[in-house]
C-alpha cells in the first residue's frame, strides 16, 4: 500500500472540491433554473473526503456500484461533469441519454456499473460483479457504496455472507451519515442504539470490519487501500464504515408536478431542531479542513488552492451551461433500449 504523495494529495483535494462545487450547482439549479431538475435528487456534499479517499484506492480495472446518491463517484472516476449535469437536467447529451436521471448514473467504461434506487439492492449487484472479477482472475476489486440505513435491508446480510464465504474481491463501504431520510441511526439500528459501531455487523459474517473517519480522505484512502489489497490477494471482503455527515437535506422536497421543488434545511434543523449538531458538522466541513491541512503542511500553496477553486468553479459553470444548452431527447426515444 503506497501512501498518496503530494501531487496525489493535491489531486484528492481538487476532486473533493469538484464534487462540492458540482453538488452546489445542482442545488442552486432548483433556484436558478426552476423545473430543470425533476423527481428526487440526492447530494453528496459532506461525503467528499470519503468518496475521494475510496476512489483514490482503486486501480485501473476496478469497479464500483452505488446508490441514488451517486454524483460524486463518477466525477472522481473522470466522467465529464457536463454529461452528469445534462443527465440530471434530463437532456439528450446526458450520461444516460436522459433515461436515468440523477439517481441512476452509470459509466461502465470507467468502471461505474450503475446504481439502484431501491435501498440495499445494489449490494448484491456489487457482490455479483466481484464474483465476476474473481472468475476473470485479473485482480480486479469492486467497491460497493451504500448508507447506514441500507445495512438493515436483508440484501446487505445475504450479500456479505456470500462474499465472505466465497472470499470475493469486494469492499463494502457503509457511508454512515447518521440519517436515513428523517430517521436517526439510533432510532433504527440496534448497534447504534447500543452504542456500538455499525462495523460490528461484519462479525456476523466472520469478516473484518473497520470504522474510519470519513472526513479524512487520507484515513479513508489507507483503510480502503488495505481492504482492497486484501481483496486482491484473495483475502476476501471487508466492511468499512466511513463516518460522514450529509451537509444537505436527504433530498429535495417530494411533491407532485406544479409544486416548485427545493432543498429544505438539513433534518437536524428542520426535524430535530438540533442546530448545534448541524453547525458542528459545518465547522468540521472536510473540504476546507483538507485545504487547511494541505496548506499548513506546505503541500498546497494558498494561491494554488485559489487557482484550483477558480478552475473548478469554471468547470462546473461550463457543465451547467452545457446542460442548459443540451436539447431534450426526442419523445419517441422512450421506446428504445427496453430490450437489448
Amino acid at each position, binding site marked *: 500500500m503506497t501512501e498518496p504523495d503530494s501531487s496525489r494529495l493535491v489531486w484528492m483535494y481538487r476532486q473533493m472540491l469538484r464534487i462540492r462545487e458540482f453538488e452546489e450547482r445542482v442545488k442552486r439549479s432548483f433556484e436558478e433554473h426552476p423545473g430543470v431538475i*425533476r423527481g428526487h435528487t440526492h447530494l453528496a456534499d459532506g461525503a467528499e473526503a470519503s468518496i475521494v479517499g475510496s476512489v483514490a484506492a482503486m486501480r485501473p480495472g476496478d469497479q464500483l456500484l452505488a446508490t441514488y446518491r451517486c454524483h460524486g463517484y463518477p466525477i472522481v472516476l473522470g466522467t465529464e461533469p457536463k454529461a452528469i449535469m445534462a443527465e440530471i437536467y434530463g437532456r439528450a447529451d446526458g450520461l444516460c441519454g436522459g433515461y436515468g*436521471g440523477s439517481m441512476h448514473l452509470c459509466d461502465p467504461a470507467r468502471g461505474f456499473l450503475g446504481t439502484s434506487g*431501491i435501498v440495499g439492492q445494489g449490494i448484491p449487484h456489487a457482490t455479483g460483479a466481484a464474483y465476476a472479477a474473481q472468475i476473470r482472475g485479473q485482480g480486479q476489486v469492486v467497491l460497493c457504496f451504500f448508507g447506514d*440505513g441500507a445495512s438493515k435491508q436483508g440484501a446487505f446480510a445475504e450479500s456479505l455472507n456470500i462474499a465472505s464465504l466465497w472470499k470475493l474481491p469486494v469492499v463494502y463501504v457503509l457511508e454512515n451519515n447518521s440519517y436515513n431520510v428523517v430517521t436517526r441511526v439510533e432510532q433504527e*439500528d440496534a448497534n447504534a442504539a447500543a452504542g456500538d459501531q455499525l462495523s460490528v455487523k461484519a462479525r456476523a459474517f466472520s469478516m473484518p470490519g473497520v470504522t474510519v473517519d470519513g472526513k479524512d480522505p487520507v484515513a479513508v484512502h489507507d483503510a480502503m487501500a488495505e481492504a482492497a489489497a486484501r481483496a486482491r490477494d484473495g483475502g476476501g471482503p471487508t466492511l468499512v464504515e466511513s463516518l460522514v455527515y450529509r451537509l444537505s437535506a436527504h433530498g429535495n422536497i417530494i411533491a407532485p408536478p406544479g409544486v416548485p421543488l427545493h432543498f429544505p434545511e438539513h433534518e437536524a434543523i428542520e426535524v430535530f431542531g438540533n442546530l448545534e449538531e448541524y453547525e458542528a458538522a459545518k465547522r468540521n466541513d472536510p473540504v476546507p479542513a483538507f485545504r487547511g491541512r494541505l496548506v499548513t503542511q506546505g503541500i498546497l500553496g494558498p494561491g494554488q488552492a485559489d487557482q484550483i477553486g477558480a478552475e473548478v468553479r469554471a468547470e462546473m459553470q461550463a457543465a451547467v451551461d452545457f446542460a442548459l444548452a443540451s436539447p431534450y431527447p426526442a419523445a419517441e426515444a*422512450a*421506446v428504445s433500449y427496453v430490450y437489448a
Partner: protein
Amino acid sequence: MTRELPYIAAINEAIHLEMARDETVLYYGQQIATTENDEFLKAFGHQRVRVTPISETAEIGMAVGAALAGYRPVVELYMAEFMLVAMDQVVNEAPRMRYMSGGQVSVPLVLKAGYGFTAGWSGQHTGSIYSMFTGVPGLKVALPATAADAKGLMATAIRDDNPVCFFHHYLLTLEPGEVPEGEYLVPFGQAAIRRSGTDVTIVATGWMVGKALAVAESLAAEGIEAEVIDPRTLEPLDTETILASVAKTGHVVLVDQATRHGSAAAIIAAEIAEHGFSSLMAPVTQVTALDATIPYSEPMEAYVLPDEAKIAAAVRGVLGMAPAPAD
C-alpha cells in the same frame, strides 16, 4: 357534513379515526413519528406508532405476526415498489395464513403504499404495479381516486379482517376534494359511476379517472355521452356495474397507467369479453402505458403515459368516429 381536504389528509384522517376507535389498530413504518411532535405519536403513543428501519420484509412480516396475535397493523410503505423486496410476505404469507389454518386465524392488516409517481422519479419509483397483487386469493386491493374515497376506503381497509393493499396515487397527493367528517366508510367491491352516459363506457382508476372525465366533458360538446366508471377496488372487482354500463353503451375503453400486460385493464377486458360479449358493439379498447420502463426526461415520460388525447382517440375509435381535427 363535508369539507375540502387534500387526498393525503383524508387518508391520515381515516387512520387517525380508526386508531381512536379501535386500540388494536397500529401504525408503523419508515420515517414516521421520529419526533415527539408527530400527531399520531401524540395521540396514540410510542407503542402503537413506531418508526422502523428500512426492512420491509420484517415490517410486513411483523404485521402478519401482529395480526395473528390480535392486532390490526397499518404499515406505512411510501412507495409500492418498496413492497417488492418483501413480496413473499404480501402475496404468499399474509393472504395464505387463514386458508392454510382452515379458518383458525385471520390476518387483518393494511399495506399503505403510493404508486404511479410519474413526475421525474425515473425507472424504479414510478410503477403502477397493482396488477401484481390481483388474483391472489385472500388479498384485497384498493385504489382510491378521490379524497373522499381515500378516507372511506382506508377506513374500510382497516376494519376488514383480511390483508389489504391500499394503493394511493402519488400524483393525487395534494388533490383537494369534499370529504365527509367523522366516520365514513366506502364499501369494497362497489365501483363508482363518476359520470353517467349512454354512448360509451370508460373504465379508469386512480390518476386516470380525472383524465377520463376531462375527455368525457370535451366529447359531450360533440354530443357524445361517455359513462366513466372507477372500480375503486380491484379485489373485489365490481364486474356487475361495469357490465351493466357496457350493456347500456355497447362500447368500452379501458384506461390504465400500467403497461398493457401488467394492467388491471386486461383483467377487466377479459371479464367483459366473457360476460359482456353479447352487448359489445366494438372492440374492447385499452389505453395503457407503452411498454417501456418510465424514463426520467419529461418528454419521454409523457410519451409513454396515457393522456387525454390518447383516450379521446380511443373513444372515437370504438365509436367509429373520425379522428379529432389536429389543432
